[in-house]
């Protein structure tokens, strides 16, 4: 801080800041609160904020009645699977582009980015038909593959921006000392690359977890992840606000916590390194 700020100014901004923050966060808070109400209390007017009969029955009900755990596991498998598969494909590519760049590296990177900008709806019809013919509709494998491909450009880009910051001189020195390529990767590169890989992993799990175009269009009952499961509440079932809230809270809690940890990486990952 270069400049002292008067306590009064600070207090005023504290007040405004908390008020605005609270308003933006409110829908999430309201969902969590409603999830602990009975259905009657949930739609009561005037709304009950804190002093109501707290109950966990919605959570029990959602789990027992609608096979919640299955959809949760689908989300876990699909988001984790597509991210790990993406990393396996992307790490060598990003490594090569960062440490052995050629004249065409930039073009390849930008071309990869351009595939991400292809609207999904432009390839919906063929993907749907190919999946139907291959028996991949409503399967975890099919969805994992689609999400891997959809997020691969982001994974390559994020890794590339991290790898590029690793000083090449260190690798040179290791090579001079007689380290083989394998040793160079295991002992020199990996320790320096782990933070970047970890943030890439985190951000892509978040993106895959919340992906709601392919998951809604390519799944039905069996492989439906939480995005599709929650969508089923849009029918008259939507009137069960307490249950909707309980299901929603469970669906967003894990990813919200991951997201809070990765807020810094989010900027870099989603702007493809254009803003750091």
């Amino acid at each position, binding site marked *: 801080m270069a400049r002292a700020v008067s306590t009064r100014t600070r207090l005023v901004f504290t007040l405004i800041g908390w008020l605005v*923050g609270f308003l933006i966060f409110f829908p999430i808070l309201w969902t969590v609160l409603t999830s602990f109400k009975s259905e009657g209390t949930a739609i009561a007017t005037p709304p009950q904020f804190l002093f109501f009969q707290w109950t966990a029955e919605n959570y029990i009900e959602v789990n027992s009645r609608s096979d919640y755990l299955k959809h949760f596991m689908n989300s876990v498998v699909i988001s984790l699977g597509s991210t790990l598969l993406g990393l396996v494909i992307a790490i060598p590519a990003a490594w090569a582009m960062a440490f052995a760049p050629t004249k065409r590296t930039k073009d390849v990177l930008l071309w990869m980015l*351009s595939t991400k900008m292809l609207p999904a709806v432009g390839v919906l019809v063929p993907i749907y038909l190919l999946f139907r013919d291959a028996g991949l509709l409503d399967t975890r494998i099919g969805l994992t593959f689609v999400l891997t491909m959809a997020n691969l450009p982001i994974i390559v880009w994020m890794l590339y921006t991290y790898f590029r910051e690793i000083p090449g001189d260190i690798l040179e020195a290791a090579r001079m000392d007689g380290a083989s390529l394998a040793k160079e990767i295991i002992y020199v590169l990996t320790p320096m690359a782990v933070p970047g890989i970890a943030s890439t992993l985190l951000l892509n799990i*978040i993106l895959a977890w919340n992906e709601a175009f392919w998951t809604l269009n390519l799944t039905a009952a069996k492989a439906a992840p939480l995005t599709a499961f929650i969508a089923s509440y849009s029918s008259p079932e939507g009137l069960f606000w307490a249950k909707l809230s309980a299901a929603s809270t469970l669906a967003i809690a894990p990813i919200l916590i991951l997201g809070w940890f990765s807020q810094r990486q989010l900027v870099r990952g989603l702007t493809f390194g254009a*803003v750091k």
Partner: protein
Amino acid sequence: MATLQTRASARLMMTPAVVLLLLWMAVPLAMTLYFSMLRYNLLMPGMEEWAGFLNYRFFLTDPAFFTGLLNTLLLVGGVLVISVGGGILMALLLDQPFFGQGIVRLMVIAPFFVMPTVSALVWKNMLMHPVNGLFAWIARTFGLQPMDWFGEAPLFSIVLIVSWQWLPFATLILLTALQSLDTEQKEAAEMDGAGAISRFVYIVLPHMARAITVVVLIETIFLLSVFAEILVTTNGGPGVQTTTVTYLVYVQALLQFDVGGASAGGIVAVVLANIVAIFLIRLIGKNLE
């Protein structure tokens, strides 16, 4: 210096990613292009025949397409104005030192991590419901007539929900840009007698210009594909009041089984997105130098 050997292995290491992405992009896109020239409906198998540009003519002259295009522009434009405008204000606010800044920041970015189906349903039911919703209660408390959000202003309601999801993104990126601003420059201007507003207009805003451009372009790419929020709240209705180009293609493909028409629509969507993508890619490409 990369040796010949490393260069060869580098090429090998890039191959899987490049080949897979090439297949993922080229094969379905070529198929879409091909289907768009056919009369092809899944309900009439075996009746496929060459149709030339007929599907495009039907799609582009369909009144629903014009509405869809307009709705898409209104949705993207509305969300951009709210999220970028709000994002600048939020970034300026969060840049001030105050107590509990870190916690407020976490609260502000939280909506970005909420899956689209959840935010759409929570807003539609628990906040915007004309009878039991929280907004209705607030309106009545102030003696106003509660608004039937999805009945009276369906598209605007969706704009609000999507803006809530994207405000954190704009805030976070603009804040990052703001914090990289050299404070000395601001202080020098202040000493020269520049007021808060002229400091903002002449120093802060130009510094943020790049970040704002990036936010606008990236949000546009994602917003052109908004789908789940429409599906779970209005199903594109009432009528076609909330049908976007993306949603229109979905309806033609998976509800009307019109593969040819949907493919033509898909190609139109690709062309629209490409117009934005060209600018974004240029901007990012410059940054790679």
